[in-house]
């Protein structure tokens, strides 16, 4: 019955698609905590951003500097997308055939807009890696990159402001998971990113 209900709610549009958060590469790289919302096999997975918001999906715009094709039977593409603060690691495998074909076509370097799902991995040496599983990727112009920068700066500053006074479960959890988080450093990162746009 519950399956039918969720199907019905999808059909009449009340199903809520997870929004794509705006986050700079250097903040995403700091993620250490990933959780599932609900018990169901299909419950969404979230990474907790250090600035205190859950994220099941992100939207990023940057420069695709590198892409590699890997695998023999299960082909997948990896890529690096650079923003003013660092690097996003993206990948598209055979479960995302559309995204894989889009990635195959793009010549580096290029400005790209990527929608995808962040995932937290533990590397063999014990360090963490956040990789973005691409849902879609398109070549865009520099203006789109610059608008994204403003958009992401705004959203990041909003989160930083909420963090100091807020009491949402995500903020409380973030303070617990990222005890060393320094608000000043994050603010500085946003400023430096903005300063890279030449007026």
């Amino acid at each position, binding site marked *: 019955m519950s399956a039918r209900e969720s199907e019905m709610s999808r059909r*009449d549009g009340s199903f809520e*698609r997870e*929004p*794509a958060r705006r986050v700079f590469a250097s903040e995403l790289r700091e993620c250490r905590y990933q959780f599932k919302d609900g018990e169901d096999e299909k419950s969404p997975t979230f990474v907790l951003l250090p600035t205190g918001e859950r994220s099941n999906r992100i*939207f990023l715009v940057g420069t695709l500097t590198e892409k590699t094709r890997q695998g023999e039977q299960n082909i997948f593409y990896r890529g690096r997308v650079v923003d003013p603060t660092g690097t996003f690691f993206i990948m598209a495998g055979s479960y995302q055939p559309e995204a894989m074909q889009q990635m195959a076509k793009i010549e580096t370097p290029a400005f790209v807009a990527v929608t995808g799902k962040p995932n937290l991995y533990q590397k063999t040496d014990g360090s963490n890696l956040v990789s973005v599983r691409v849902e879609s990727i398109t070549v*865009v112009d520099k203006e789109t990159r610059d608008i994204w920068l403003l*958009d992401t700066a705004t959203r990041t500053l909003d989160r930083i402001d909420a963090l100091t006074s807020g009491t949402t479960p995500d903020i409380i959890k973030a303070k617990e998971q990222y005890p060393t988080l320094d608000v000043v450093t994050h*603010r500085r990162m946003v*400023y430096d990113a903005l300063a890279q*746009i030449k007026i």
Partner: protein
Amino acid sequence: MDYSEAIERISRKFKKSGNEINREKVEIKLRRLIEEFGVQPAEAERSVSNELAKEFNIPPASPQGSSGASGATGQKMIADACPGDWVTLEGKVVSLAAPASPAIAPSGIVADESGAIRFVVWTKSNAPKMKEGAWYRIESAVVDEYKNIPNLKVHSGTTITEIDKTDPLIPSPVPVKDLRPGIGSVRAKVIQEWEVTHERMLQSGILGDETGTIKFVIWKELGIEKLVVGSVYSVFYTQVDEFNERLSLNLTGATIMQEEGDLATITNSDAEIRGAIVHIAPGSGIIKRCPVEGCNRALSRQNYCPIHEIQPQFVYDLRIKGWLDDGEKTHNLLLKRDVVEALTGINLDQAKEIAENNPLGMDEVFLQMREKILGRYVACKGRDIENRLLVNSCKRMHFESGDHTKLLNRAGGAS
């Protein structure tokens, strides 16, 4: 003849009680009753429903069996009349309509202070002729349900007496979001007018007040006039229909009065939403539509319309379905042809050209449009209808150096 709507109605009726019907069997039964036995479609639907109800062991909706439980034929207010009840009520005939079938004497709407209900008088009932505007006491009538709308049935066991009452009955309008299937009254503004999709249709569009919006339709009838977009109307005793769990108003036969002044409509009307287009859904780009008047459905690749089957004389159209994301919320978008043309720079003729001269055909249009708008920032204006933004205008956003300066100050200022 097409039975899918009737089947759908029956299916939904039984889903409520957790039963799944066998659509094929239902269709065979309906077809047999209507085509072989010349039964009226509505009657056939009712009879199949009842048969199924017996099969599923659900007590039937109208007959005497349930009357004992629901308090015999006690006098009721109209608002309290539920399907399955035998009722006695006093009300004013506020509307009379021409009968749809010779077996049926007039139907109309009877109202009291609590509400209104549609009634049907069967010829066999030998009821006196009723006049619009007069009050009657209706004893032992049955409330049943037709298309999810309660209906008062006047049959041979019903006694109707005119009563001496001249109260001017003023229905109180309800907020749009509180409308229920049946008869209702609203005070609302005409927000939008749509292209008429049928020759018998006078007008269709959207009405709204501060609580919500609802589709409306007016069918052509003598002396009935179109509503003016942007004007406010009081609509008394309009029929509220339900289809696919969505409500709409059939204003034909309702009392409509234009009002002075303006009315605040729901805030999301003409809202502007800025964000990035994060997904373009399949079915976007160039599509084929069913040419049958009043249909206009999107056809499958094989030119198949779910209602009118294969349609080789299809009509091309452009549309984009997708998601606009502002980082906090994702909005379902629907862009119509002119908006698509303005945003992508590809017009219908160019799209046809691409579709007809390219090995990928219509897919090529989808891909080209996707390349042009996916991942871009846009500002969309439109109306939020049932969780989907019907976009009237969609423009690419531009870099604002003023915003840049403000953000630099905000980021640097507080540290």
